[in-house]
């Protein structure tokens, strides 16, 4: 049996809407098979993973907490990927944003003012953007591949954070634990509603996604992004500069990742510590693709991947399944998303007979 692709005359509009849902369905089925293989009741496990977290208010807040960084980063990455700039170092920009934003509450901890929080958020965005400026500069002016440089910078950011919280920024009263001092109250991002932990970071995420959606759909910049992404040559004829686009998309996605980083540290953790992210910067890549690089789709995709984190924690407690299963789910999901996207451009035909093929070959 062979698989042959036949190009559609034009991309299928129906399938471009359906393909993410098809991918979700396939992931759930694969997940059920996986649970059955490790000897758990697949129905109970899938219910615990995907449905139960939606039924109580505490988990819903957790989903919002985890969706916020995923949507913020994912929306920024969609601009990068649409314009063919492969920033895969958002995890590093997240960390650097968190560090830059924490300068205010850690270094100037004696300063109390309502300006603290806004300054932290601005510093966070600047920190993330500056860190993304490194691969942007290298790509725009030194012709260096941004995939590898942005990824290498993730490891460097992680080590830098580790050094900070074990060295110069370690809290004097944390009994040698590698953490900074707890942020003061005015440095904490407020909660959105009284019923739980979800903080303003979620509001930032929704606003950013809607803003980017508007930009992509209704502004010249949005048009420039898609033209340069589809054909650099065509963009050049239209007078668009791909070098400026590298800077624009990388700085934008870096700033959003930095905002996500400082929001996480200020709203969820309340101090700096060696590990501040369960891989949000990488999971956001999946979010961007599951949302079909459309900021509104990315809101939905971010909520779904947040659910996989919360669901993973839930089944770890109730069914004694390792939380590693979350990473497996996320990886599988991206595979199914990418495979299903093929259906938009191509018709897939299964060719069963070898005979037909060989006689066809003879006719040539």
């Amino acid at each position: 049996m062979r698989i042959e692709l036949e190009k559609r005359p034009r991309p299928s509009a129906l399938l471009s809407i359906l393909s993410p849902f098809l991918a979700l369905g396939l992931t759930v089925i694969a997940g059920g098979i996986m649970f059955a293989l490790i000897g758990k009741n697949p129905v109970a496990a899938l219910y615990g993973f995907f449905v139960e977290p939606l039924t109580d208010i505490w988990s819903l807040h957790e989903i919002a907490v985890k969706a916020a960084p995923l949507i913020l980063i994912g929306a920024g990455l969609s601009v990068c990927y649409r314009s063919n700039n492969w920033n895969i170092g958002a995890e590093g920009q997240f960390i650097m944003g968190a560090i830059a934003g924490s300068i205010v509450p850690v270094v100037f901890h004696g300063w109390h003012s309502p300006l603290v929080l806004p300054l932290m958020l601005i510093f966070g965005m600047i920190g993330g953007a500056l860190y993304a400026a490194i691969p942007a500069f290298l790509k725009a002016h030194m012709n260096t591949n941004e995939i590898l440089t942005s990824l290498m910078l993730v490891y460097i950011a992680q080590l830098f954070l580790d050094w900070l919280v074990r060295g110069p920024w370690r809290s004097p009263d944390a009994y040698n634990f590698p953490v900074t001092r707890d942020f003061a109250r005015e440095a904490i991002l407020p909660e959105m509603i009284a019923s739980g932990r979800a903080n303003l970071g979620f509001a930032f995420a929704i606003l950013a996604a809607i803003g980017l959606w508007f930009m992509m759909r209704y502004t010249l910049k949005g048009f420039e992004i898609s033209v340069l992404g589809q054909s650099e040559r065509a963009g050049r004829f239209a007078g668009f500069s791909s070098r400026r686009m590298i800077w624009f998309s990388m700085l934008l996605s870096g700033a959003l990742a930095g905002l996500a980083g400082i929001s996480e540290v200020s709203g969820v953790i309340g101090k700096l510590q060696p590990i501040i992210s369960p891989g949000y910067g990488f999971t956001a890549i999946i979010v961007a693709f599951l949302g079909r690089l459309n900021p509104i789709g990315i809101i939905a995709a971010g909520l779904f991947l947040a659910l996989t984190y919360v669901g993973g924690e839930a089944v770890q407690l109730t069914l004694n399944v390792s939380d590693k299963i979350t990473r497996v789910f996320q990886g599988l999901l991206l595979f199914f998303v990418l495979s299903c996207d093929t259906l938009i451009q191509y018709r897939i035909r299964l060719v069963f007979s070898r005979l037909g093929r060989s006689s066809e070959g003879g006719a040539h």
Partner: protein
Amino acid sequence: MGMIEAILLTVITAATPLVIASLGELVTERAGVLNLGVEGMMIMGAALAFAATQATGSPYVGVLAGIAGGALFSLLFGFLTLTLVANQVATGLALTILGLGVSGQIGEPFVGMSGIKLQPIVIPLLADIPFLGPLLFRQDLIFYLSIALVIGISWFLFSSRAGLKLRAIGDNHASAHALGIHVIRTRYLAVMFGGACAGLAGAQLSLVYTPQWVENMSAGRGWIALALVVFASWRPWRVLAGGYLFGAVSISQLHAQAFGIGIPSQFLSALPYLATVVVLILISHNRRVTLINTPASLGKPFVPDR
């Protein structure tokens, strides 16, 4: 054994997985396929090699499991990018994310267990040569394989008919197809070869470098291997040289600590990643040189017309 010998031995051990993974990716890229999933295939190889060694008691079974596991895992990438013409960059990332997840799952029962180390094979007579003997002829199987791979791949690519076809596909898949060369079939084989090499590199990590299972133990080596291919401008012997350079950089932290140099350990740990960035800048700022060396069809999907 002298101090210099001891240092060189650690350099060789650190360089071998980089060289092997990089050689595999080199062949894949020479066929025009960019597989960014090296990190994922490597960590799968490490987990499977460790698990198989624990199950059978033989690290040689572990080596085979690492190779087979890497090759099978890469088939997933091959199916998506070659049959379904999915985006190669995104699919490679997916392979890495999935590999990190699945390997964590496979390795979980083995966390904290002490592993079985792959023992050196002493080559008679040659091993008695002063200085060089202990360095090069009292090594484990995987080191010998890494050298054999360098020689074998340079012969294959530049002196064999099949290698010429493979390079033709990488440089212009449409013309190669018109000449009757099987583009997709060759690319599948090249992807699987890359996967097998990454798996073998992973096996080296969990059977030789640090014989135990630690989650994410590949620690970015797969990505460094990718950078090495660019650094080596797609030539096997330069991969060997580059791999030893990076091996030396990555073990410098251990020796700096031993000598009591007062630099924070995190800065020294960051050196290999920093070195990768610097090397990429040096190699790529000359646009023309990069263009000449890069396989012209690299990363571009191929759909034969019927």
